[in-house]
């Protein structure tokens, strides 16, 4: 029995060694895709994986990168720190990948980024918005970590620009939940950008996430008569606030961030409102329409923002490898820092913190559904 155990261990070790040896052969470039395929947000994970795999398939059809075929290694990182660390250790130490696309959730991307950065593996998170994904505790940028989405407060800046220029608003009222960092960040940046560009904030009111009655705030809005109301919260608050606003006869349009993007958004109540988002499948730009057609042909479903950003992140990575001309991660990272990439979710360049500077999509809510309105550059 003992010898059998020893034998089986030897067999497994030998097997692993050959597997590693095989992987090191030229003409193959490994790319890890870490996505939450189980856990709290499996639909996010599937969309991310599908977007990334579509990009890899397209590159392989064109002959791969640097003459090598791209081999995707998909791991389930569950949107949770522990499985994410295991998945990252596996792809970095065992599969010896040099490039990681993922994760979706900031809570998983942050621990992955620690491992990747230490191992000099280039990581692009498609959708994690937490600033600590690319910046460490001392405020220094993690050299090998990038992201493809804009960070939350950036939406506030874009919304202010859209309100001033496209809606012609001169005065705004800001509603925010001060206990929610996402909402607070958007509201603060909106306020700053709106006043800096010549607008006036006529009122600010906060509420808590358990509130259902917004009548006191709405009475103040009816009294202040602003040109628009900024409410960058999630759909549940938006549903209640916009419904009560309509009943009070408030006509100023409401505007918010990607928290509005939900199947449960009450489109009748929020009709006439706008929100900023990463991407819209109805954007007429050829990049978007080509991507949408390819995605729909392959998977028979409409790509959402997660799929689009994963597709962009993968393309960014491969484009940078091509520009660097070698599999050296130092050169690839330098190439990413200087890249100007025309993607599905906008034209991307990176700032000093490895956050993309890119355009945002403005969507309009109508009673019939959510419609593409315009693209706003920062």
């Amino acid at each position, binding site marked *: 029995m003992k010898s059998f155990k020893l034998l089986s261990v030897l067999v497994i070790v030998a097997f692993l060694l050959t597997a590693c040896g095989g992987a090191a052969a030229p003409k193959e470039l490994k790319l890890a895709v870490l996505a939450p395929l189980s856990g709290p947000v499996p639909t996010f994970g599937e969309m991310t994986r599908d977007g990334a795999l579509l990009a890899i398939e397209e590159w392989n059809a064109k002959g791969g990168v640097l003459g090598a075929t791209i081999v995707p290694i998909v791991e389930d990182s569950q949107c949770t720190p522990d499985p994410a660390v295991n998945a990252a250790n596996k792809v970095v130490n065992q599969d010896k990948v040099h490039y990681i696309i993922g994760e979706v959730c900031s809570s998983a991307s942050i621990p992955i980024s620690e491992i990747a950065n230490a191992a000099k593996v280039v990581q692009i998170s498609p959708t994690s918005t937490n600033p600590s994904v690319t910046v460490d505790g001392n405020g220094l940028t993690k050299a090998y970590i990038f992201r493809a989405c804009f960070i939350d407060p950036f939406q506030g800046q874009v919304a202010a620009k859209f309100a001033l220029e496209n809606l012609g608003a001169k005065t705004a009222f800001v509603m925010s939940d001060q206990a929610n960092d996402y909402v607070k960040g958007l509201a603060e940046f909106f306020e700053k950008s709106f006043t800096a560009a010549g607008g006036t904030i006529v009122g600010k009111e906060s*509420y808590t996430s358990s509130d259902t009655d917004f009548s006191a705030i709405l009475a103040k809005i009816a009294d202040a008569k602003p040109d628009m109301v900024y409410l960058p919260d999630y759909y*549940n608050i938006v*549903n209640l606030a916009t419904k009560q606003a309509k009943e009070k006869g408030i006509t100023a349009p409401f505007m918010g961030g990607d928290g509005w993007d939900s199947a449960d958004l009450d489109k009748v109540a929020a009709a006439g409102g706008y929100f900023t988002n990463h991407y819209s499948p109805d954007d007429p730009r050829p990049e978007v329409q080509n991507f949408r057609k390819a995605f729909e042909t392959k998977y028979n479903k409409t790509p959402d923002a997660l799929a689009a950003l994963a597709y962009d992140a993968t393309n960014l990575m491969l484009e940078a490898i091509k520009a660097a001309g070698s599999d050296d991660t130092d050169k690839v990272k330098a190439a990413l820092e200087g890249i100007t990439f025309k993607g599905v979710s906008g034209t991307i360049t990176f700032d000093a913190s490895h956050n993309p500077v890119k355009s945002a999509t403005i969507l309009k809510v109508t009673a019939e559904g959510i419609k593409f309105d315009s693209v706003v550059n920062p």
Partner: protein
Amino acid sequence: MQSVSKQQKAPIIVTPNSFLAWIGKIFLIIIGLLAAYILIINLFDKPYLFAQNVINGLQLGFVYALIALGYTMVYGIVKLINFAHGDVFMVGAFVSYFAVERFGLHQWPLKVFPGFDPFLSTAIGTVTTILLAMVICVLLAVTIERVAYKPLRDAPRIAALITAIGVSFYLEYFGLLDFVFSARFIPYQRPFEVVTWYIKDGIHLVEAGIAPPDGAVTISNILIIIIIATILVQIFLQYLVRRTKIGIAMRATSFDKPTSRLMGIEVDSVISFTFAIGAAFAALGGVLYAIAYPSIRTLMGVYPGLKAFVAAVLGGIGSIPGAFVGALIMGQAEAMTSGYISTPMRDAIAFSILILVLLIKPTGIFGEPEKEKA
């Protein structure tokens, strides 16, 4: 031995320290004056905004009154604070949601008899929906009473109180499961459309996309329905408690349970009946609350439940008119806080009221000093 235990009991009676009591009173007077000052300044500054806040407060206050009745009646009869009451309120809202969204119960007359008057159809359908919610909540409350409270009737009161908290958590987190109500915020489909009027030089309808003029005060049909429903409930309860046999039995049970039993009152059914009545009004409150603030989830009953509890304590727990008055005061306190201080402060103010009442007049406005029976 007996005399020893008596001696030990004696020092529990604490005489209030008069100096500290004075400091407390002065502090309260200052706070009261400050509040009055803020309110008066704002009343003269923008009277229409003040009126709007009063109306907003009425809407909340009347819903709290419906919930507070259940707390106060159950406490009056079994001396139990039924913390699961707020969750019965939530179940009422969910029953009406499923009835309206899945089965279209709010329009059944029109479906059964095509060509029925649409207004009457909505009215009858809505009343049916509310009645269904009430029936289901009554069944739920009676079940809770039988399963969780009745076995503990002779246990120390603290045991029943802790059980009530357990039942409350059970309902909330059982509802949170995906196959029950799920953790989502669910947009509530109203059985009827909310119509708003504004008052300025007469009463006018608010039309979609047209803002009411400056200085207008708006009221909605749901506010009027909530006020009428709550007043009807109050009248019904006064009649029930004062004029009917079951009412007399309830009062007798609340006064002295063992003697009532000796007099031939079926104490257990009277207690079940009290729970049932409270649950029915909580269900009515739940449906009206969901229509007024149309987003529901399983934790929606927590805050309205706690605030109604504060209202019941403020009015004097055990007193039916007390619950009503306490709820109206709570509604105004919340509306004024969110109108003139800030919205996140309103929960803090609501629960400060609880602390103040317990410190100053633990029996509440209408409460009678409780005689602790040996």
